[in-house]
């Protein structure tokens, strides 16, 4: 399809070597010029950067560059997006490289979070690539003087039926790709897909297993200094005094940076920086103020705090009683992201400009926030996303970036590599919030759920830096500190603490209330799946309790209440592959459990069946076979989906069986892996099998977080089956299970 070229005055060119790569505007003026107010909504993130060359570039040698505003977190997004582009552009994926979130080079796609990457960026790139293909065919038609329908794209060239061809790079010599995006795209027929839907190998793995630089931790710009921060002993502590000269005298130390209660040190060598950090910590005097609630009664404490109540579902007359009324309360502790590599950032402040290399999930919001913290114009701050270790949500990446920026500003012209220590990550990252929910339901005579009441209490699940600096840890401790902005609940249909609080089941009478608690005794933010981990655990555990009351098989009971055919399909598939048989008798101490959820009721569908055996004497759980079925819409990379769900299952198993953040009345006490044990190899399940139901042509459904909740409930249900008693408080530790078993 032909799109008229824009007049030259509205085109901006970035000077890069070779043919044109990126030419979408960066300045605010041009950004305004880009807005297409009267256009219908564009697919995915195209709305955010509605020019083709914001997403696709073609180099002088035919190499294709994809630009995404999303970040590789280890979820395989780079590979999946390359597959999307390669498919629609008809190029060999090996000829495609990808640039991820960079405030100077890519579209602003906000945060790589909420399992939105395929839905937003994947959709955008798929469409942009298709439109570029169409554009190239149009250009070739003009060049070859043939009608477009006699041409097709193949292996990086436009080929005519008569055998003539023009390579892409010979068609794109100027600004041809600087075209506004159209609302419709000539997408390929999914039946013809040759790249999408294949388990293409991840493009980043070979480098990672052969020692290539891959992470922000591997950056080594010339003249780099190593920095460490000294955090206070507890929340809100004030730095009263510190003997800076004593530390600056140490060998290799370049400078101690103090701004109010923010304290850091930079040195020539890394070990020198660590020793200087220890020395600095020992000569710092703090006034502590923190008063944390009693960990043993944290859930009561939270539910007594002031809350903003919102009814998020109200159908029929839930006060109507059926024959059997059941009620239960479920709780979840604070959970750690626990990134295996503590957060790190490299920052350089030079000639009034700040560049930060960071593994933040959102470099654009981070850039604005840093600019505000440092009182700099945003266009003087450049944030580049570089991979870190898995973050699983809002961990300390942004805070490390802020720390590095502060040190860089104090030591201009030297790149500063600031690395957090394990104890700092464990103590200061924002945790997944503790939650409580009450559920009650009634069954009618036919064993159907007649009424359903659900209430959930939670803090916010997002304190991501998005402008106000107070969400950056360092900013709270500066001499002129920034207060954290008042937290808000993420609105439905996505939700925060209430994510997945509305069951997908068909229930005639239901009332669901979200109690949003603004006051945060512990620092909290988004952890993979947000409220869905707890809500799905609670709902799916309760579904089993109801099924037992109805004397129904747990799988049949769920199917009885579901009309959504895709939901029914994943449930049936998982049960079938697991070998789920009704009324199966199992030996004492051995159990099986089932659970299902559609993430956010909008994204991927996931059903999980699990086996568990429980040691009678110790209460320890051994996970047997775990079988999952997942529907992510069009599966771009089925192995990527399997990898994500396998990982979700093992990670969620760890959360569910072992994990909780511990604290005393003044500080966090789970400061390393010895005080916050997570699953190790001997505890991994006997096997994990993930079955992907492919839906060619269907919209992409976010998958990265779909497995957390169903895993927790499947395991909880398996334990309940094994021991004949129900545990409702996470984590399901050996101690708690033993107490439930008795002697």
């Amino acid at each position, binding site marked *: 399809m032909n799109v008229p070229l824009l007049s030259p005055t509205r085109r901006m060119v970035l000077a890069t070597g070779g043919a044109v790569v990126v030419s979408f505007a960066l300045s605010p003026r041009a950004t305004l010029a880009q807005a297409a107010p009267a256009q219908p909504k564009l697919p995915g993130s195209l709305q955010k950067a509605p020019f083709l060359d914001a997403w696709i570039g073609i180099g002088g040698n035919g190499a294709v560059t994809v630009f995404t505003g999303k970040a590789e*977190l*280890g*979820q395989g997004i780079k590979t999946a997006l390359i597959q999307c582009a390669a498919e629609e552009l008809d190029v060999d994926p090996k000829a495609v490289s990808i640039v991820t979130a960079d405030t100077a080079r890519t579209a602003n796609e906000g945060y790589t979070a909420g399992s939105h990457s395929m839905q937003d960026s994947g959709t955008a790139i798929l469409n942009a690539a298709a439109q570029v293909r169409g554009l190239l065919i149009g250009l070739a038609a003009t060049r070859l003087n043939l009608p477009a329908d006699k041409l097709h794209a193949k292996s990086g060239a436009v080929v005519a039926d008569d055998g003539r061809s023009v390579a892409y790079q010979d068609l794109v010599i100027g600004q041809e790709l600087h075209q506004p995006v159209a609302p419709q795209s000539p997408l390929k027929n999914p039946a013809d897909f040759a790249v999408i839907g294949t*388990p293409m*190998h*991840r493009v*980043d*793995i*070979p*480098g*990672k*297993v*052969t*020692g*290539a*630089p*891959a*992470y922000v931790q*591997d950056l*080594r710009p010339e003249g780099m200094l*190593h920095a460490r921060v000294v955090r206070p002993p507890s929340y809100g502590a004030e730095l009263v005094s510190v003997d800076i000269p004593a530390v600056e005298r140490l060998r290799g130390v370049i400078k101690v940076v103090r701004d109010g209660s923010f304290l850091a040190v930079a040195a020539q*060598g*890394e*070990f020198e920086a*660590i020793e200087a950090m220890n020395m600095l910590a020992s000569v710092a005097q703090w006034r502590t103020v923190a008063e944390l609630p009693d960990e043993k009664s944290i859930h009561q404490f939270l539910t007594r705090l002031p809350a903003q109540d919102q009814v998020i579902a109200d159908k029929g007359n839930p006060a109507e009683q059926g024959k059997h009324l059941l009620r239960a309360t479920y709780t979840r502790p604070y959970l750690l992201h626990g990134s*295996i*590599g*503590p957060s790190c950032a490299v920052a350089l402040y030079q000639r009034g400009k700040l560049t930060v290399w960071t593994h933040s999930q959102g470099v654009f919001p981070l850039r604005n926030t840093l600019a505000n913290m440092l009182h700099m114009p945003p266009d003087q701050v450049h944030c580049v996303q570089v*991979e*870190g*270790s*898995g973050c*699983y949500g809002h961990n300390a990446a942004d805070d490390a970036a802020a720390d590095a920026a502060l040190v860089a500003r104090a030591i201009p012209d030297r790149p500063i590599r600031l*690395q957090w*220590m*394990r104890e700092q990550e464990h103590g200061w990252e924002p945790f997944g919030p503790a939650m409580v929910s009450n559920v009650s339901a009634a069954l009618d005579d036919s064993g159907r759920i007649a009424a359903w009441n659900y209430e959930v209490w939670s803090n916010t699940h997002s304190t991501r830096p998005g402008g106000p600096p107070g969400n950056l840890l360092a900013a709270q401790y500066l001499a002129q500190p920034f207060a954290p902005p008042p937290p808000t609940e993420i609105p439905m249909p996505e939700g925060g603490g209430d994510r997945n609080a509305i069951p997908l089941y068909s229930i005639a009478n239901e009332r669901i209330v979200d109690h949003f608690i603004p006051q945060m005794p512990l620092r909290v933010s988004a952890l993979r799946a947000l409220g869905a981990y707890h809500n799905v655990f609670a709902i799916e555990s309760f579904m089993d309790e109801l099924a037992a009351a109805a004397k129904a098989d747990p799988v049949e009971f769920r199917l009885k209440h579901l009309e959504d055919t895709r939901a029914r399909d994943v449930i049936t598939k998982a049960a079938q592959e697991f070998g789920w048989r009704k009324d199966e008798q199992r030996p004492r101490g051995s159990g099986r459990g089932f659970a299902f959820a559609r993430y956010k009721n909008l994204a991927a569908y996931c059903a999980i069946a699990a086996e568990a055996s429980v040691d009678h004497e110790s209460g320890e759980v051994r996970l047997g076979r775990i079988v999952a079925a997942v529907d992510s819409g069009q599966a771009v990379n089925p*192995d990527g989906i399997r*990898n*994500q769900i*396998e*990982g*979700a*299952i*093992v*990670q*969620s*198993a*760890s959360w569910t069986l072992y994990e909780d953040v511990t604290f005393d009345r003044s500080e966090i006490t789970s400061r*390393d*892996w*010895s005080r916050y044990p*997570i*699953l*190790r*190899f*001997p505890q*991994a*399940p006997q*096997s*994990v099998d993930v079955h992907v139901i492919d839906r060619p042509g269907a919209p992409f459904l976010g998958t990265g977080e779909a497995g957390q909740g169903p895993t927790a409930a499947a395991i909880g249900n398996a334990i309940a089956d094994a021991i004949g008693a129900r545990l409702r408080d996470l984590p399901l530790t050996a101690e708690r299970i033993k107490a439930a078993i008795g002697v």
Partner: protein
Amino acid sequence: MTILNVNGKQHQVDADPRTPLLYVLRNDLKLNAAKFGCGLGQCGACTVLVDHNPVFSCLMPISALDGRYIRTVEDLGSADRPGPVQRAFIEEQAAQCGYCIPGMMMRAQALLEKNVAPSDAQIREAMAPNLCRCGTQMRILRAVHRAAKLMTVELDTPIREAKR
């Protein structure tokens, strides 16, 4: 001045003898594979081999390494000619974020040098000191099994030829 034998080459390193090997590998020798995970010997992201034994390089002062044989992932092969352990991890796509993987590979290498066909239980036990937070354990187990098989094949054969 300390002389370290890393991956078969001698290196003169001018660092405090108390410096843990991890920082010397990364900063003085510019080797990326071994990673900082905790510095406490709890997570294994820093695992390298010393005299064929897996050690936490975050807790190994270089003063203890005079005359000893140090191996990192970089010695297991290259991007063009990956060794059996590397091939196995690529073929099984045994990584999510990949940060823990070099440590896993070295511990697996040490295991396979002593036990050519370990059982699942033996692999789980041997790998227990190494943490993976992404939940890639199942793939890592498959990769170690696969590496055991690959190691019995002629090791010098590049992938291209092996496909014959």
